[in-house]
């Protein structure tokens, strides 16, 4: 831990030393790169392939939010963290359902304006009263988001989780023997892409296909939601690229390099 702190300190110090007309916070602000993806979404799933003893949950509806920022001194590889919160209900043996996960550890690889691939892990809880045992989740999640055109954006994610505290839910994902549960979503966002004040960003509604496996039952459904994505200024990233390439832009330039 001490080594990490010292390393960060050295990087910051070297960057601060480069600045002739900039305070520590100003330089830190210039040096930091980042972005974020915020989803509000509703997912409805129905069982398509039952376990031998029948599905524990017939249908599952979850409504919630996903907030996944990333931050770093590199413009391409950054620290990624986030949280997912969703509440809802099951049918059949109906009850309150919840699915909440915190991802304190992760890495994001950014490319283009606001496209990224992330990998994250953390801890979560998921269950439903009267039907699905409450369990602690240890998830590993991969996410990909990229603009396909100025109005279309691809959203995809997959999550494999290991269970703790709910023996009945162990080995509940037939297609993923290495995990206890599996979840995925592929969607398409229709909206806008902006470049206001040099910040690449976008927003819009999306529709996706969701798939989930738990308790040896497969579920298929739809996810509908709204997403906002934002990244640090393109001009700043281009400045760094130009500097690395030996063709730096003037210090006070706010223009995007041609």
């Amino acid at each position: 831990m001490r080594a990490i702190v010292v390393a960060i300190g050295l990087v910051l110090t070297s960057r601060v030393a480069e600045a002739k007309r900039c305070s520590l916070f100003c330089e830190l602000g210039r040096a930091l790169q980042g972005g974020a993806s915020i989803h509000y979404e509703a997912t409805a799933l129905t069982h398509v392939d039952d376990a031998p003893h029948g599905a524990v949950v017939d249908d599952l509806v979850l409504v919630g939010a996903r907030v996944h920022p990333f931050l770093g001194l590199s413009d391409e590889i950054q620290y990624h963290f986030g949280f997912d919160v969703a509440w809802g209900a099951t049918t059949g043996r109906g009850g309150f359902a919840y699915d909440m996960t915190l991802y304190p550890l992760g890495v994001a690889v950014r490319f283009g304006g606001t496209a990224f691939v992330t990998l994250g892990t953390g801890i979560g809880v998921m269950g439903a009263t009267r039907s699905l045992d409450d369990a602690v989740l240890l998830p590993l999640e991969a996410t990909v988001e990229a603009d396909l055109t100025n109005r279309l954006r691809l959203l995809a994610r997959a999550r494999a989780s290991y269970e703790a505290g709910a023996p009945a839910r162990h080995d509940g994902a037939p297609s993923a023997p290495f995990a206890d549960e599996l979840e995925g979503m592929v969607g398409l966002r229709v909206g806008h892409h902006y470049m206001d004040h040099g910040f690449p960003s976008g927003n819009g509604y999306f529709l996706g296909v969701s798939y989930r496996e738990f308790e040896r039952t497969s579920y298929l459904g739809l996810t509908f939601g709204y997403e906002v994505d934002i990244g640090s200024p393109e001009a700043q990233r281009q400045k760094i690229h130009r500097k690395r390439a030996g063709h730096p832009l003037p210090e006070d330039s706010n223009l995007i390099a041609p």
Partner: protein
Amino acid sequence: MVSFSGTVAPVRWLWLLAISACVIVPRSLDLPKNDATTVALLSGTLGHPLDNIARHPWFAVRRKGETLWVVYEVGGSGSEPDPFRGHHAYGDPILHAMWRGNEADRAAACIEKVAPGVKREIESDYTFYPGPNSNTFGDRVLRTCGLHASLPSTAIGKDWRGLIGGGVTSEGTGLQLETPLLGVKIGLKEGVEIHIMGLSVGIDLWPPAIILPLGPGRLGFADR
């Protein structure tokens, strides 16, 4: 071809509301006459890409006979001719409440006295998310001056009470308990509103609407 009739009428209405993300019977943004003091609470969207998930409020005060309005808000304030439709930088304005006559005289006197202090306090401790921010300012002025109105659910920060706090709602007919992670508001008019990290979902009883953390913040009748 899909036809909506008979028993599916409510579904049709919900569908129409959902696809238009609209609020039924919104208040007019026409400027009221200056034959009486007027106080208005408005909000507008932030810029791209947050335009559909975050709003910013302002109070507009115009004394009887005046032509200019005095605007009170975090990050601005001043006089302007039309804060209903032409308030700088903020899009898609919504009028949430308006007071006229004697009621507005009392409201104007209170806002003039209270708002600058609250604004200074908020601006010195400003945090874009989860608060305190411009929406915290709006809610605090409403509660301090006893002006019964609510900010929309997309006014993130309106329920900021620090690490823990609570009390009577700004609408005046309910109670709320808030922490940065979770909060709840329950009231006769307010219905039930749950706050998860600043995002609001719930059911407004009067005027009836589903409260959502998106767009104008509600699916149903306009708040008033």
